[in-house]
């Protein structure tokens, strides 16, 4: 039995050893508040999470929401929802109810938590004031994003805690006016203590707060002034939760003017390379400004950065022309429209948009398709027709036949056979005088970038491809691999905000009229224009459309100025089809202005000027009209 005693002894020892507090384990992925906020570095770690949630409308802002760079968005961006570009595959467009919703109360809660934590920190009072102003900047940014979507919203400025009573947590919507005033006030409190900084500061600065205020005030002013262009009705309107009186407009315009002036007079900012030697140089300067904003810190006011290893966006993945995809399976998705290309000035006719003229009779409203009996203008190259247009067109759009990333980008819709038959968008070839010509400009689909039904989703259907922001060197062809930074605020926008406010309000203080005219002309000079144009609303708006193109401003410009429903009223967007004319020898190019293939007529319903309030079943908020 001795053996058995030994064994029981061993078991007893083991059993004793294994008892005790075996269940009292600690998690390995959590950190206490004291540990985190012990230092400036720890605060920065917390700030990183807040800034990452900030509704910055950059590359990663898509119809799937913010920070959606690595999602399969089919390459649909807010620009595709306007008149400046179409997606190559889908005519999926404005559906204001869902795609633009952003209910930022999660971020608001985190900001309030920060504001409540700051007084408890062991920093100096000055450091705390700076941190508090930074928190106000974040909150202003947050409520601006809410106000421009929903109108008046609940203003919640402290963290709520749930004690079992749901009713006490319900906060009604403020009026739209009170909401805008709140956002402006938050901007002021941000401006109060934030350090000045410059374009290299990537946390909030005084100037970033002014730039935000400039943008906010312009939006509020426009809503007040143009509400009557698309009035709505219903309880939300009756309670002033949406809509403002036109009499408020000038107050807001003046707020915008003052905020903009503060930046213009700061001496910190100026335009990047303001006096180019030639249109070609201007086009390249303009492109480089966006390829790497760090080269242009005099113009950048607030940059959101992308860097390895975890942070990247997908502009190169989606938007390179097919021929320079670097292996991305879904390039060519951004197709600038003909109306967008039309709107640029030409150097020969300052102050006017210069539509692309394709026929001898100069009729730019004929979208009837190819007609062998019509007299088309013939060009030696597919891009000659654009010569003399604003340099920024060449820096923004890949035009047919131009070079991009070392390749000649071929965008051709077909050819005219020697007998005058137009063979358009049909996959075939023809031998003329011993030379084989292909409808799409080359034999294999990898060698062209437009109009083909083969790999149709990668092919431009407007006749234009896209260049602004793209890297001129190869990029890893996966989602989220583009690293270039985004300028959320840049000096050019401030100038345009200023000019628009001045022209809309008729403000004359501080020599404003002349300063505003200089503002738009300085932008035009930077684009190699040599003749100044007068300050008119039309000139300001055209300048804004082309200068800020694809910076996600166009969508909100159409919203705040209530222009969306006027443009998109069973509207069909257009493209330009280059055809190789084989009736002449050597062949030359002709162009057909035409409606986009595979596109539905698009209409913007007026109630989309406000987004549907989510969760009205439980938050008891008054819903916006017609939802």
């Amino acid at each position: 039995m001795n053996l058995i005693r030994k064994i029981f002894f061993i078991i007893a020892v083991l059993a004793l050893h294994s008892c005790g507090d075996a269940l009292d384990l600690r998690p390995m992925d959590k950190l206490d508040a004291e540990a985190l906020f012990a230092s400036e570095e720890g605060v920065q770690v917390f700030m990183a999470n807040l800034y990452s949630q900030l509704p910055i409308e950059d590359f990663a802002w898509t119809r799937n929401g913010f920070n959606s760079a690595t999602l399969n968005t089919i390459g649909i961006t807010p620009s595709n929802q306007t008149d400046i570009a179409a997606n190559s595959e889908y005519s999926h467009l404005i559906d204001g109810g869902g795609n633009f919703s952003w209910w930022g109360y999660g971020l608001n809660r985190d900001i309030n938590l920060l504001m409540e934590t700051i007084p408890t920190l062991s920093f100096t009072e000055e450091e705390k004031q700076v941190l508090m102003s930074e928190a106000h900047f974040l909150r202003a940014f947050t409520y601006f994003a809410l106000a421009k979507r929903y109108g008046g919203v609940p203003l919640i400025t402290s963290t709520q805690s749930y004690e079992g009573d749901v009713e006490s947590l319900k906060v009604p919507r403020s009026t739209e006016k009170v909401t805008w005033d709140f956002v402006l006030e938050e901007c002021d409190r941000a401006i109060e203590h934030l350090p000045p900084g410059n374009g290299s500061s990537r946390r909030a600065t005084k100037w970033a707060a002014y730039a935000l205020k400039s943008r906010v005030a312009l939006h509020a002013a426009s809503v007040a002034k143009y509400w009557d262009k698309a009035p709505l009705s219903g309880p939300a309107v009756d309670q002033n939760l949406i809509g403002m009186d036109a009499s408020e407009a000038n107050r807001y315009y003046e707020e915008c003017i003052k905020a903009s002036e503060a930046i213009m007079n700061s001496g910190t900012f100026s335009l990047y390379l303001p006096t180019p030697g030639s249109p070609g140089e201007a086009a390249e300067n303009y492109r480089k400004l966006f390829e790497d904003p760090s080269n242009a810190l005099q113009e950048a006011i607030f940059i959101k950065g992308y860097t390895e290893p975890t942070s990247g966006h997908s502009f190169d993945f989606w938007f390179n022309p097919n021929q320079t995809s670097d292996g991305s399976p879904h390039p060519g998705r951004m197709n600038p429209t003909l109306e967008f290309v039309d709107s640029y000035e030409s150097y020969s006719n300052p102050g006017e948009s210069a539509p692309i003229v394709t026929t001898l009779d100069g009729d730019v409203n004929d979208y009837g398709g190819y007609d062998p009996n019509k007299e088309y203008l013939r060009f030696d190259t597919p891009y000659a027709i654009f010569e003399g247009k604003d340099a920024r067109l060449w820096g923004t759009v890949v035009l047919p036949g131009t070079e991009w990333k070392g390749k000649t980008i071929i965008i051709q819709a077909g050819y005219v056979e020697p007998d005058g038959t137009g063979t358009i968008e049909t996959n075939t070839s023809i031998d003329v005088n011993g030379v084989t010509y292909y409808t799409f400009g080359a034999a294999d689909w990898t060698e062209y970038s437009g109009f083909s039904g083969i790999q149709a989703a990668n092919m431009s259907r407007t006749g234009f491809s896209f260049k602004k922001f793209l890297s001129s060197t190869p990029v890893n062809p996966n989602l989220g691999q583009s690293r270039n930074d985004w300028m959320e605020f840049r000096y050019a926008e401030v100038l345009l905000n200023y000019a628009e406010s001045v022209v809309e309000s008729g403000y004359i203080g501080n020599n404003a009229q002349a300063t505003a005219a200089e503002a738009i002309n300085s932008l035009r000079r930077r684009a190699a224009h040599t003749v100044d144009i007068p300050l008119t609303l039309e000139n300001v708006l055209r300048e804004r459309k082309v200068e800020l193109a694809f910076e996600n401003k166009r969508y909100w410009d159409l919203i705040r100025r209530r222009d969306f429903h006027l443009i998109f009223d069973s509207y069909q967007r257009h493209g330009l089809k280059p055809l190789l004319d084989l009736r002449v020898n050597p062949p030359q190019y002709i162009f057909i202005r035409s409606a986009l293939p595979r596109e539905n007529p698009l209409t913007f319903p007026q109630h989309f000027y406000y987004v549907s309030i989510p969760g009205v079943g439980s938050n008891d908020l008054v819903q916006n009209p017609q939802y």
Partner: protein
Amino acid sequence: MVTKNLMYGLLLQCLFLTTLMAHDIHAQVKPIDKTYVVLDKSEWQLQEIFKNIETITDYKFVYPEDILNNKPIINANKKRQSVNDLLVEIGTAANLKFKQVDNSIYVGERSGKKEIIQIEIEDVTVTGKVIDDSGEPLPGTSVTLLGTTTGTVTDLDGSYTLSVPDGSTLVFSFIGFVSKSVAVKDKSVIDVVLSEDISSLEEVVVVGYGTQKKENLTGAISNITAEEIQTTTHTSLAQSLQGKISGLQIRQQSGAPGDLLTSIDIRGFGSPLYVIDGIARDGGNEFQRLNPEDIESISVLKDASAAIYGFNAANGVIIVTTKKGSKGAPVFQYNGVVGIQTPTEMPQMANAFQYMQIRNDANVNIGQNPFLTKEELQNWQQGGPGYESIDWYNETMKNFSMQQQHSLTVNGGSDNVRYFTSLGFLQEDGLARSDAFKYEKYNLRSNISVDLTENLVADINLSGRFDKSTGPSFSAFDILRGTISSLPSNQPYANGNPNYYTDVRDGQSFNPLALSDPELVGYNESVTKQFRSQISLTYKFPFLEGLSVKALGSYDNTHIMNKSLNKSFNLYTYDADNDTYIPNTLRSPSSIHNGNVDNNRTTFQAHLLYNTTVDERHNLGVTLVYEQRQGWGRNSALSREYQFYTTDQVDMAGTNNMRNSGIESQDASISYIGRTTYDYMGKYLIEVAARYDGSYRYHPDRRWGFFPVVSGGWRISEENFFKDNINFISNLKFRGSYGIIGQDAGAPFQFVPGFSTSGGGGYEFVNGNWTVGARSPAIVNQNLTWMESSIKDVGIELGLFNGKFNMELDVYQRDRTGLLAQRNVSLPNTFGGNLPQENLNSDRVRGIDFSLEHNNMIGDFQYGIGGNFNFARTMSVYVERGPFVNSMDKWRGGPLERWNDIVWGYDLEGQFQNKEEVVYAPIQNGDLGNTRELPGDFKYRDANGDGIIDGNDNLPLFWGGNPKLHFGLTLNASWKRFDMNALLQGSGNYSLRFTHAYATVLWADGNQPAYFSDRWHKADPYNSDSEWVAGEWPAARRTADVGAMYSESGAWRKDASYLRFKSLELGYTFSPSLIESIGFSNVRLYVNGHNLLTITDPYVKSFDPEKTEGGLNTGWVYPLHKSYNLGVNVRF
């Protein structure tokens, strides 16, 4: 092979051996007139003299007691005389008669002048051998004369010799086997094969922390033994169980080598707990990779009897018991099987002409210019140089791949040590022509039992597994997608030069030949090393029978190492003008990734067992267990990019974009377990058990749970009134159980406040310098606890004709409360925080299990047939949510009181037959009206009659993707040396809807299945005025150009119920006389097949209805296999 039944039988047989020996008539029977006695006195009482004769001879007197009453004293002669003479003397004096039958002398009253003595000794000697189905001798089989207890038992070789009277019948019986009667007639050699009695009520079943006799079970517990499992050959153990156990729902999801993506679910409850040799282990993945040759039996706890396992047993428990050694010379067994496998189904894709036709239609049908000219289209129809059609699937994949499995086991033991050792090897190849896919597995097991002392046994089980899956760096999904979407008009190699893969990028996929070439694109490799160990000591207290204690300690380790090399590669376009190949570089730069996971677990158990019988009627069993478990793990991963590719070593890669990650984790639980079983004479059964479980996951004040179960049964067939009156019912039992079980819910440690640096967003505050953000603390959740399941089960078991028919029926219901939900669905969404998940929701599963089996033997023909089905549905009982907006919303969105997994869709009315129908039909596309609809398009019912087909016309028309009905049918038969096993299996009450290429015309402009060619189209696509020609599918258009064609309706969502001929095995066992000379004791050859035939909806059939992929139902996962195998089983 020594089965449990056999061992059990042997044990019992030994107990009865002495009784039988007493009646042994092995010695030669002598007639009474040849046997002489000398009596030592002259005056005898009758009884006394009989006894005296019995002591000095082999004879035995048989008589009724009362016959000796009132008989005179016998005066016997003291000289030597024959027994015959003596009996004549006695008979005369006492008026008795005698009859000798063998060694028995029957005594009776004599009336009149009848003969005093009768002698009936005309015995014949019979010899023979008793073996079981597998040819193994059955030592200890009792061989008796029909109607008597006279007989013998077989020796170790299964042989016997017996002298029997002429005209008698022998009965061969062995516990656990079906008894057999054979008339002797004039035979002198009677060899008998006994078949195992599968329905035997003496069968012992492994239950939680112990075993029970099947007849005494009160829970719904199914049991399957090694033999039944091994009738199916498959790389996954789960596939070998499919269809064989009622309520066990098994579906294979992918056929890729080593994937083993099989869903295993008991009764629709969810993923079960896996207990292997008494220890809760890693789950379905480990289970499926067990070597089937190691398995003794598998029990499935389907009702509240699982409560004995506490946390995480609420979905039922699968208990695996591995084999143990048995005393005797080593028995070697080799089982080898080699086979080929081929996909069950792969849809045929369109050829180049078919594709071009459809692509052309897609332009013409929406009024665009034709996609290609008439001449080009004709060229594609004719084929010829430059117009060849490629079948990408055949280019990339083989028709067949190989698999092989080998296993060698040794079983034996001495008086004190018994061992079972096995070595298993499995290899499976993939279908890719590049041979890139491969799976290899090695299993090793050593189970040793040592009798340390008379009452103390040590069991040491060690096992290990090494397995390795390899594949190209692109998944089978990507490759298959390539074979499906690549256009048949493209060529695999640029300019036909096999050194240059063509730059094919159709339908969002790449040239599949390139993707499946690991030399080109790199590879993935996953290696698992698994070590399992346990030692237990069992001590039987010598002073109190039935009392024992056991201590068990276990340590498990699993190490997983993943490596992948993603090489940058070129695809080429041939430029004929310059005779050059233009490269397109993909996936640049190359990168390499390593990942390591190391998981550990220790388990300690202490058991106290007591079984006793009081007064021969009250049977009582008590089990007490203490269990403590601890687990810890560590994982890390790293990756680097190459500036240029060197070798597949991390150190040889560049230092750009280096990434790494790692985290550790731990867990622990403590449990107290108790169970009492009681039965009264096997008639009334009751069991009460409970587990008190503590988990590290929850707040210290709320981490202990108590999970009780009570069950009872009534074996009405054991009642005398029943036995006496209803003979044909051999077993009838009613049973019921009710219990409560916990299921872990939510992430652990929610009661601990704190910020986390994972899950927060980061930001670049300084150019080139990334700051990782800290996530704000979630609201601390002290109330979180486990989900609680209460399971009710009522069952009936019925056996007819001595177990020839058996039926079992169970009805069950599981109510789950405490399912996680966030309360903030009813909070205002301006709150901004996520309230933590709380235990708010509840659901209910209700179902029925049924099984029926019949076993019989007619002459040499033995057969068995068994069927089972399970039907189960789930409903939400409470769902936390905000108020409904209106009654429509409530009808549509209210899940309560309604079975789950219902799909809403339009009611398909048919297809538009002409343009007029389209024009006058209800509007299907909102603002677009019906402008996009063409003749042949699907027409939906305007359910609310408002002239508009929209969301309001959706109806709850379909079951969703989870089968509610599962069924199986097994057939087995043997005749002489041939045996056969067949299995049919199926599922029902569900539907499938495929997406992407298989269910979208011209999906992403890639190729499409050939079946779409049967479509509505213009008689002449080049003449817009030509007539429409009808077809099965609507007129072809690209996805962006259709109307409501792809709306949910019966057009695309199909009933996927299926019946499948799952497996068939035919075997032949060689006669022992043939193989003994070469040293084998048993040789069996067999052929089998798997997934041989499927009956289902024709559309669904082309994708295999068993395989569902969840959300992304593309049908692109690796196909399931049909396989044909040849195997041999040798014992020596």
